[in-house]
């Protein structure tokens, strides 16, 4: 099994205070901690597990500046064999469509049985790159994948539907699967693994290497053009309780009691 995993280097924002930068089109990334996109982390783990069972190779691919090499190193440390970084200032502003084109330009030159990526990226949340890429490669795909069982030339996958329901599909290989969180338990990386990963080569490709035109990528090559970012308007705001933890707890108990719930 030759497996390609597409990964994205994204800022962790759940606990961070976000500031919109002066262009109004993106957030100020200074001071944010970046790591592999949560969903891609599961995709990578799934790829490595499949390789461990069936043999073959895992190639991690990302689009991003120099910084994103730390995410590729993480993939190598976890068991990926090769890594490719696509980078060019012209790629900036690429939406899911332009991103898929960039990935496609390289992936079409590689051998693969499976392509795995996360169901969505935590930053943009488009959940679109995978299926677009599959269409460009003309291979079947499934999104929100919770389970993969491989047979010869086919895979059985479980997809999440709403409300805890899943559907099981049979899909011919080669195929692309966008995986959900919780499909596995991503492993910790050993020190040995990190050391080894530092020695591995990361192939770096730019726009010229992709065979794409400038107008295929970035804003020019995108469907979606961001006009501005803004803080969501507050439609309803909770009444905030203030004080020491004891005082707050006392108020909470009063509120809960007043509803007859204690």
């Amino acid at each position, binding site marked *: 099994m030759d497996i390609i995993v597409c990964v994205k280097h994204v800022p962790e924002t759940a606990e961070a205070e976000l500031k919109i930068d002066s262009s109004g089109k993106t957030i100020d990334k200074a001071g944010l901690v970046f790591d592999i996109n949560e969903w891609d982390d599961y995709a990578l783990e799934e790829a490595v597990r499949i390789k461990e069972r069936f043999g073959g190779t895992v190639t991690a691919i990302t689009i991003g500046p120099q910084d994103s090499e730390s995410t590729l190193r993480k993939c190598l440390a976890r068991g990926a064999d090769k890594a490719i970084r696509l980078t060019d200032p012209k790629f900036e502003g690429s939406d899911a469509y332009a991103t898929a084109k960039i990935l496609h330009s390289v992936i079409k030159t590689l051998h693969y049985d499976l392509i795995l990526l996360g169901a969505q990226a935590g930053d943009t*949340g488009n959940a679109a790159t995978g*299926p677009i890429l599959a269409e460009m490669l003309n291979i079947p795909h499934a999104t929100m994948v919770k389970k993969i069982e491989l047979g010869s030339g086919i895979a059985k996958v479980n997809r999440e539907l709403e*409300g805890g329901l899943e559907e099981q599909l049979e899909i011919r290989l080669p*195929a692309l699967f966008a995986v959900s969180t919780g499909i596995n338990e991503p492993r910790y990386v050993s020190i040995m693994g990190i050391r080894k990963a530092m020695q591995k080569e990361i192939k770096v490709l730019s726009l010229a290497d992709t065979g794409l035109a400038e107008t295929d990528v970035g804003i020019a090559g995108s*469907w979606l053009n961001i006009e501005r970012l803004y803080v*969501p308007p507050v439609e309803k705001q909770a009444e905030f309780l203030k004080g020491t933890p004891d005082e707050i707890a*006392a108020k909470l108990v009063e509120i809960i009691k007043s509803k007859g719930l*204690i």
Partner: protein
Amino acid sequence: MAKIFVLAEHRQGQIRDITFELLTKARELAEKTNAELCAVILGKNVQEHAKALAEYAKTVITVEDPKLENFNSEAYKRILSKLIVEHKPSLVILGHTSYGVELAPRLAAALNTPLATDIIDIAFEGDTLAVTRQMYGGKVNVKAVLRKADTYMVTVRQATFTPKKPEPPANGQIITVPSPLTEEISEKRFLQYVLPPPGGVDITAAEKLVGIGRGIKDQANMPLMEDLAKTLGAVLACSRPIVDKGWLPNDRQVGSSGKTVKPKLYLALGISGAFQHVLGMKSSDLIIAVNKDPKAPIFSFADYGVVEDLFKIVPSLKNKINEAKAQKT
């Protein structure tokens, strides 16, 4: 006349709520742009559904085929591509659901139709389409415009628009189009639905829920959470990362891919309030959220908010509940 297509979603014989949410918003857009609202439904035995759709839409296009008994994005892609090329709608609207996420990007790529996913608002500005969506787990809103095209496509976030039946009903015309599928889709086949194994606890029946999220940090903190829930006489529920890590079983997850709950009290501890979670708990009678981030989206859904480290609140809260219970007896 320009057309707006809405893809009706149905599963196991039921039309899904999202369909009427989409139709309601699409009707408003159709009126503004003087377009014809057209519902599209693909499936096997969907004539009853078509009647329901006709109350909202000027026309209902149905494609019937035994091969469409269950959703298959590849089959849908082929049929919709053909319909879109023939009718040239100015806009195609799908739900940002499990089905929409599977189908829309691939369909858009096949037709090179500009697509925006998971939108929460939409408007034509002249002949360009402007959309609002969110990034970074709901912390930032984005206004974007789609590249100019004859046909645009969007997927709409669930529960964003409130369905409203038109008065009087649209009394739409139902048009049955023969299925263009000549053969089985062999590269992608539906096998069966899979239900999660039944769990021990039904969080949808609980009067009080303590919902825990990634903010509890470590599995070692689970006993503390269980303790609080027990003291309060509540059941422990959670956001998705807690299930992903295996700290609680599947059937405790609240949200779009988990359960929808409506308890008298939902106490959210260390939950950011991503929309997939909020979908499952926003109708709770009383929502109290504890989160150390004052900008956490959960505070727009809570009745009461506490901006504080949950580990400072939980022990105090437990004590105060015990005191209150002691007073009562």
